């Protein structure tokens, strides 16, 4: 009986710098050629030798399970060490864990993705999926806001998506100096301009908690029902198994009941401080 806290080993085949504090790694299993199946929105626990383990969302294409892709922001002790990882290094992987974006529930209606900062990474698998099965959805909207032009994640991919005629892709930054020809303003500001049918829209929102709250309020103003909005929550996570208690949020464990929740379920708790 293998203890669920024992990681499997994977090695890094590619490492790419995204922004000054984010990078993407591509992984292959160290032994065997098993595929990594996951649902968009799920996460893994990544272990770096000796230093520890952190929860990182999976940001690759769910329909291309040959490799495992993570985009990591170096903000803590473990992720800062991860920034030094290079091709050929080994890491431990446990997962996939958690709930997923409602990509099936959204079928035959409009889909709006609203991402803030590095929150685009957990949404990317769902975006890949929806764009790959574009015919099953009506309008597709992606609104992305981040701090400054230099912080834009997946910039080339955003350009590619923006060039498509079948998706409304809008990017905005909070602050910009001269030379930036794109939009400046908060991501919620983009909502009023997007074209979608609120009553038939599924919203998938990922970013800092404050940003997700403001976004959900703005979408509610446009008439998107709370039950059709989904957000991805972040809390301290140690085991990802529902056994360590750290990620509790009211009655929910973010690791096993989330990280993706319907906004309707969390809305009252989000208004309370320090839950």
């Amino acid at each position, binding site marked *: 009986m293998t203890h*669920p806290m024992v990681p499997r080993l994977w090695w890094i085949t590619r490492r790419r710098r995204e922004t000054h504090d984010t990078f993407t790694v591509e992984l292959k299993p160290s032994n065997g050629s098993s595929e990594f199946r996951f649902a968009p929105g799920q996460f893994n626990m990544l272990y770096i030798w000796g230093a520890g383990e952190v929860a990182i969302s999976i940001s690759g294409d769910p329909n291309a399970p040959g490799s495992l892709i993570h985009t990591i922001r170096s903000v803590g002790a473990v992720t800062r060490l991860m920034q030094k990882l290079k091709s050929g290094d080994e890491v431990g992987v446990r997962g996939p864990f958690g709930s997923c974006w409602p990509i099936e529930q959204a079928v035959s209606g409009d889909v709006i993705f609203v991402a803030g900062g590095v929150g685009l990474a957990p949404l990317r698998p769902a975006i890949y999926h929806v764009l790959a099965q574009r015919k099953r959805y009506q309008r597709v909207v992606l609104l992305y806001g981040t701090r400054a032009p230099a912080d834009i994640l997946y910039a080339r991919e955003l350009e590619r998506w923006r060039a498509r005629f079948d998706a409304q892709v809008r990017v905005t930054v909070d602050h910009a100096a001269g030379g930036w020809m794109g939009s400046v303003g908060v991501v919620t500001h983009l909502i009023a301009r997007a074209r979608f049918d609120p009553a038939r829209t599924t919203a998938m929102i990922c970013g800092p908690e404050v940003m997700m709250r403001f976004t959900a309020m703005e979408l509610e103003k446009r008439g998107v029902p709370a039950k059709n909005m989904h957000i991805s929550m972040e*809390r301290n996570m140690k085991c990802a198994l529902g056994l360590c208690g750290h990620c509790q949020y009211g009655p929910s464990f973010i690791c096993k009941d989330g990280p993706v929740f319907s906004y309707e379920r969390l809305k009252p708790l989000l208004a309370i401080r320090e839950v």
Partner: protein
Amino acid sequence: MKTMNNAVIETRPQFVLERSDFNRLIEILHEKGYQVLGPRLRDGAIVYDELESGGDLPAGWTDEQDGGTYRLKKRNDEAIFGYAVGPHSWKKFLHPPQVRLWKARRKDLKIEVAQEEQPVSKKAFIGVRSCELHAIAIQDRVFLQGPYQDPFYKLRRQNAFIVAVNCGQAGGTCFCVSMRTGPKVTDGFDLSLTEVLEDVRHYFVVESGTELGAEVLAALPHNAANEKEKTSAEEVVKNTAAHMGRAMDITDIKGLLYRNYEHPRWENVAARCLTCGNCTMVCPTCFCMTVEDTTDLEGEHAERWQKWDSCFTTDFSYIHGGSVRSTAKARYRQWMTHKLATWIDQFGISGCVGCGRCITWCPVGIDLTEETAAIRGSEAPGRKEDPHGNGNT
């Protein structure tokens, strides 16, 4: 509640075991290969530790408990289970404070992980109270009935032999009657005992809950209990039930706490709470743990440990940028709301068994029965929203 390893006996005949034959129980368990663990005096308290023989039992001792107070006292009889509960619970054996999960070595940048050897030692617990059986059953739900199981916990559980005791005396902070977890032992044991002290006679009324329990009993000198002995044993439990040190009204307690996340009482208790986490350490159901990854100085060996953790630390809820629950108010609220309310949604059962340890071992005597009563007594009339949408049931 179920025992993990043995065929359960449904109808349980009662037998009598004389005090003079009691120590034999420990010998038999030793002979069967068990490490025997039970109550004994240490550092001014009755703790659970290894028993060499029946002589280690705290015969003639009792405890006096109240908010923030615990004192040992001599009894005027030789009862061996004549106390309530001490600072320890069986959690320390089933869900130990520190467990190594794996070791790994790295050579030429290749990592090899080896899972820790699985715990197989047989342990017998002597003197498990009804509240504690309920606590074990609650941890069973946490560790064994979710989407992921703790396989080490499962093995420890399967290798435990449980000798339960019906409480002969209620402690000053006990409220198992309110929580419906005692004082009478109902199931989840291999053997159960009721200690009866009469003027000249000291004996136990014994039931076996499993075939393994019956096998152990069979090896002991025993007789079928007569009606008088059975009645005496019943009276012991009845008397205990009538003398609970505390009480808690649990009517819609989940709704009550869900509606009162913003109650001013949380500020009041936070002003007293030292956030020391004692309550979480002594609680027999608190299961939270942290995971620590370590490496040696050469960087060739690494280990992963799980260790008890407490929601009273600021680290507990740390995400980059800071702690989610930075105030004492938020941390106390988390603990109590979890214990009494969210636990019900998570595991279908309350996380509190009414053992009173958190009251006794709180250095400032914070009493959750008092805190819930204060909230219930002063619930703002307009505040009927339940943030979890469960309505007011």
